[in-house]
């Protein structure tokens, strides 16, 4: 029998894997991939809450769709930023993005 806790644990595990990718990777695109995994984990939680706590409404699913829309906007701008920096520095390693450092 699968309960809400199973889905929450899956979401938590996916979130932690994504967080690890976002924290421990050098490549800026890999960090964006980690952030996508984290957003997906949140979506799993939202839909699981919807299904178990308020099954007659679709509020959680609507919220998850908005999260997907924001994620699409985020990944578009983020990758464009990475491309722009790459053209100037020929580098996609975040350790070298240090203009604001002194």
């Amino acid at each position, binding site marked *: 029998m699968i309960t809400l806790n199973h889905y929450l644990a899956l979401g938590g595990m996916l979130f932690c894997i994504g967080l690890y990718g976002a924290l421990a990777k050098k490549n800026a695109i890999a960090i964006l991939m980690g952030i996508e995994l984290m957003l997906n984990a949140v979506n799993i939680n939202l839909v699981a809450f919807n299904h178990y706590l308020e099954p007659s409404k679709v509020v959680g699913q609507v919220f998850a769709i908005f999260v*997907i829309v924001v994620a699409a906007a985020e990944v578009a701008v983020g990758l464009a930023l990475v491309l722009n920096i*790459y053209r100037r520095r020929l580098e996609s390693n*975040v350790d070298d993005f240090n203009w604001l450092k002194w």
Partner: protein
Amino acid sequence: MLSTSTSTLVFWFLTILIVASALAVVLLRNIVHSALFLILTFVGIAGIYILLNAEFLAAVQILVYAGAIAILVVFAVMLTRRGDISESNLFNKNYLAAGVLCLALFILNTFLIGQTFWTIKSGEPPLNNVGAIADAFLGRYVLPFEVAAVLLLVAMVGAILLARGVNQDQ
């Protein structure tokens, strides 16, 4: 509804698929392979949505994540490639601290999930999943709906501006 044992089996299969491919995204050294496993993760999550009676969301997941976002990520990888592709996705110097932090967060999270008591409501999900979502979009959530259009417009203009700057330098 599927029988309970079948849906349990499907859940564990999808969980193993999702976690294994998410780990592959993070741990592989070739970023193109990471991107391909990212697509597999997204497809597995779409299966989880179907298990949770969210059919439209599963379709959206395949359409937007496994379709558009994955393509965008792969193109960005091919545009920023430099040096050896098989060494393109390495760890930085604080990978150990990050691993300890994420493991601690996972253990804390799982512990708290076990401690919390949820009031499970049983009710019939709406028969027409898409129709219910349409009513929510164009009824109660109409303002976020229009704001989403503005957000998409701003993101598109900003992203084209940034990526075009790339183009003019060539």
